[in-house]
């Protein structure tokens, strides 16, 4: 694998994570339990889609095949997506959505913090921009996870169930492969083992305050960021997200 193709793959991972999660979160628009939460979810989704434009824009530039961020987002099929399995999981109830968000935000914040020191200035600049938004995302998702978990018996039960359901998707974020290693060697991506330690510190503190029990398993689902095997949910999501370009190829705004 050349450095250039590893960089392209790595940028797709960054951009596909924010794209797929951004789309998932936007599915709440008009359906959230209260108006304020609806607005908060839509705003978080908007930040993530904005970050996607920057990551996939850069990916297209690095690829050099003339593909724009829109082309990459709307004209690839499911096997070409490089997002983590966690972010493509369905929204479930409001608590499950916020648990998914909190787990991703804690990872995202630590990742972006390291990427601000990347040897590639373009990546460092996007990371610095996104980090400000993601800091705010984690504030909100962690507060909400704590509030709901340490709430009523019913809300606690749902949050524990959400954590148990999503925990097997956490390991993939920290399992390095050839792309991660090449990017780490190039001074761009962080060492994922060190990142895991920081993630655990954060998440353990949040879960303790939330009165939740961290599942006693290190089993990790994999196949999202390599594109080897996505869960069945991503294809269904893309039929919605890419509907217009599939029905009317090449349509422009």
């Amino acid at each position, binding site marked *: 694998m050349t450095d250039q193709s590893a960089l392209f793959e790595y940028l797709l991972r960054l951009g596909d994570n924010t794209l797929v999660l951004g789309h998932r979160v936007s599915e709440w628009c008009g359906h959230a339990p209260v108006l304020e939460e609806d607005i908060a979810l839509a705003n978080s989704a908007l930040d993530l889609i904005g970050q996607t*434009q920057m990551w996939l824009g850069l990916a297209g530039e690095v690829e050099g095949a003339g593909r724009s961020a829109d082309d990459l987002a709307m004209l690839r099929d499911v096997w070409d997506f490089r997002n983590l399995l966690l972010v493509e999981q369905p929204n479930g109830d409001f608590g499950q959505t916020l648990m998914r968000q909190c787990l991703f935000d804690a990872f995202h914040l630590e990742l972006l913090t390291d990427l601000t020191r990347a040897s590639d200035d373009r990546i460092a*600049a996007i990371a610095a921009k996104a980090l400000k938004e993601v800091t705010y995302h984690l504030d909100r998702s962690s507060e909400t996870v704590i509030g709901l978990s340490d709430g009523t018996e019913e809300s606690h039960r749902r949050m524990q169930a959400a954590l148990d359901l999503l925990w097997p998707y956490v390991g993939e974020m920290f399992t390095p492969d050839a792309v991660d290693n090449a990017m780490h060697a190039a001074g761009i991506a962080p060492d994922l083992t060190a990142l895991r330690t920081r993630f655990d510190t954060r998440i353990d503190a949040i879960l303790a305050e939330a009165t939740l029990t961290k599942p006693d398993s290190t089993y990790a689902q994999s196949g999202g960021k390599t594109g080897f095997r996505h869960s069945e949910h991503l294809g269904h999501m893309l039929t919605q997200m890419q509907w217009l370009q599939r029905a009317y190829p090449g349509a422009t705004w």
Partner: protein
Amino acid sequence: MTPDLPTIWHWLDEVPDPEIPVISVVDLGIVRDVAWQGDTLEVAVTPTYSGCPATSVIAMDIETALYDRGIRNVRIKTQIAPPWTTDWLSDKGRAKLADYGIAPPSPAGGPDTCPRCGGTHLTRISQFGSTPCKAHWRCDDCLEPFDYFKCI
């Protein structure tokens, strides 16, 4: 005759933000640089939030305003580093925000006073508001809700 840069900055200070029209794009701190490159005027603009839908409208408004002043060749350059911060809001912009009913950003993480009645008993309703750059608060003195410009 080529207009000088202070004149151009003055013109840009008359371009309103499309979402909060009482302040200008210069007040907002998103115009980072203006420079002539030959006969083309290059304007560096930084987005407030990466997904802010007003960004493309702002670029168009700047081009239109300069075109109306007779500048034919304008290039808008998006510049994301260093990232935008509310520290770049002008003092004039902060005062106008408060007059308009939006509490200006405060490093304390929340508004100091209610922009309507000046009350100091304030409650955060939501971390997010009507645009990505605002949060939603309520004054417990006058009981009115208001927008707070998030400090980032």
